[in-house]
């Protein structure tokens, strides 16, 4: 166990010793700051509550966090292949599955750390610029007005789960195709076009859309007791989580199979 933690330590070192990682953090910290300054200079007399600011800024950051996590997931395996370091990595007294697991966990921790950073920064910056309100009247959501802490925490949790689902897909692609470019391209396409594909599929009027990955990436639609991402097919949070769970299991299984056996040429 202690030995496995050292694998994780290695993967973390390879993430945090790269300049790119800190550029990502610079975005997470810089965007809320720039937004606050912009709001204050444009509408100084009618500022939002700190919670409304947090909600708006977090919506922007959530997309970035998903993209950044996908980039790291894509790099996890494919990067070792493109650098050629995979050959030195795999000739150690470890099963390939352990090495893959350490990479997967490091990727999850990276996404979690970015999410925590975004939560903290948007909360602190919002409070610093707009003051703290216990019950914000300007939130769009019923629950958000009554219990902003609970609402935002749940909102972040749902966003994190969606990010993990897409990042797992990227991780699978990375392990199966060993190409970072292809992986990042396809995963970001899913992120950006997911909503559009969901709409197209619902136009077809086939309930099958309920079982695809795309709509369930919008878990936040269940907040405030909503019917979920597809209003014409009311679903429950449990159902969405189950669909995500099945996709997740398939992605992880494919990654494991693809990485575990094939020749490293």
């Amino acid at each position, binding site marked *: 166990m202690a030995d496995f933690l050292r694998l994780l330590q*290695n993967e973390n070192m390879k993430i945090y010793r790269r300049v790119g990682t800190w550029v990502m953090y610079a975005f997470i910290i810089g965007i809320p700051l720039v937004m606050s300054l912009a709001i204050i200079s444009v509408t100084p007399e009618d500022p939002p509550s700190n919670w409304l600011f947090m909600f708006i800024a977090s919506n922007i950051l959530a997309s970035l966090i998903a993209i950044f996590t996908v980039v790291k997931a894509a790099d996890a395996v494919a990067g070792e292949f493109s650098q*050629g370091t995979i050959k030195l990595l795999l*000739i150690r007294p470890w099963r390939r599955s352990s090495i893959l697991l350490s990479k997967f966990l490091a990727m999850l921790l990276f996404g979690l750390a970015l999410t925590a950073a975004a939560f903290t920064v948007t909360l602190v910056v919002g409070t610093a610029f707009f003051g703290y309100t216990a019950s914000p009247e300007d939130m769009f959501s019923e629950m958000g007005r009554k219990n902003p802490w609970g609402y935002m925490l749940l909102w972040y949790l749902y966003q994190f789960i969606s990010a993990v689902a897409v990042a797992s897909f990227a991780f699978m692609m990375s392990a199966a195709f060993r190409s970072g470019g292809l992986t990042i391209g396809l995963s970001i396409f899913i992120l950006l076009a997911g909503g559009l594909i969901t709409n197209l599929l619902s136009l077809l009027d086939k309930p099958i859309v309920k079982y695809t990955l795309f709509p369930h990436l919008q878990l936040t639609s269940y907040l405030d007791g909503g019917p979920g991402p597809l209003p014409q097919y009311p679903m429950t949070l449990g159902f969405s989580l189950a669909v995500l769970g099945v996709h997740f299991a398939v992605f992880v299984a494919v990654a494991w199979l693809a990485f575990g056996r094939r020749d490293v040429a």
Partner: protein
Amino acid sequence: MTQSPVVRLQDVTKKIGGRTIIDRISLEVYPGEVFGFLGPNGSGKTTTIRMMVGLMSITSGDILIGGHSIRKEFPQAIRQVGAIVENPELYRYLTGYQNLVHFARMAPGISRSRIDEVVRLVGMESRIHDKVKRYSLGMRQRLGVAQAVLHRPRLLVLDEPTNGLDPAGIRELRDYLRKLAREEGTAVFVSSHLLSEMELMCDRVAILQKGRVVDIRAVRRDSESSEAAPDDVWFDVERPEEALRVLDGLGKGRIEDGRLAVTADRKTVAEINRKLVEAGFSVYGIRVKTKTLEDQFLEVTRGESVG
């Protein structure tokens, strides 16, 4: 030999897409031995090494390292191996030292002081805290050797390790590998397509051609060559055809490339020289044509179709 081999290849075969790339290779490397794996480009050296370290599956046959099968008991087998496969590709955005820490963490019981010791061994003290992307190929080779020996492996596998090294670096590596074999009893398996290098570095050499081992032989060292063994000797003499008649069959005299050549031991060479001088020929030089590995290599592979 009475010792058991560190690595044993048993009828190892690799087929990719119906093509046989490695064809029933069997060989053994013993503790304290530097074993050369010599073959032209594309003969299958890297493919064999990839199978030895578990990066590629083995189509049939098996590879045992310290008695453990690389396919069935991978962790037990590989923990005894240090290797560089093809180019020494390391994490370019990490420093040399961070790279060593990374690989040290993956094996049990490697202390910081062991890392420092290895850094000194490969002579990288002054540059070890620089990023690898700023290293020359020669320095990356050294760092590659460093990560391979960190855990004191019983078997060291190096794929064309002299690529990118200057003559001084090659000499240093050669001395280091011989010392490792002699003092720590490490079995060293080195591949190369350069005959001259293998000759200086190795105790035994396997010659690989189109995926098959065509010969395994001990490398003859000058110091070991017996006085009594006949050598091919060239006589630099005027009018070689006439001189040949004087020899009267002594030392299987013959004309090669317009020069007088014989196969004779030391005593016979002296006798031939005396005969020639007595018969009035001026002998300008006597040169032993040492049989290099290259000659042996050509001898073994001669007559086989190319391509």
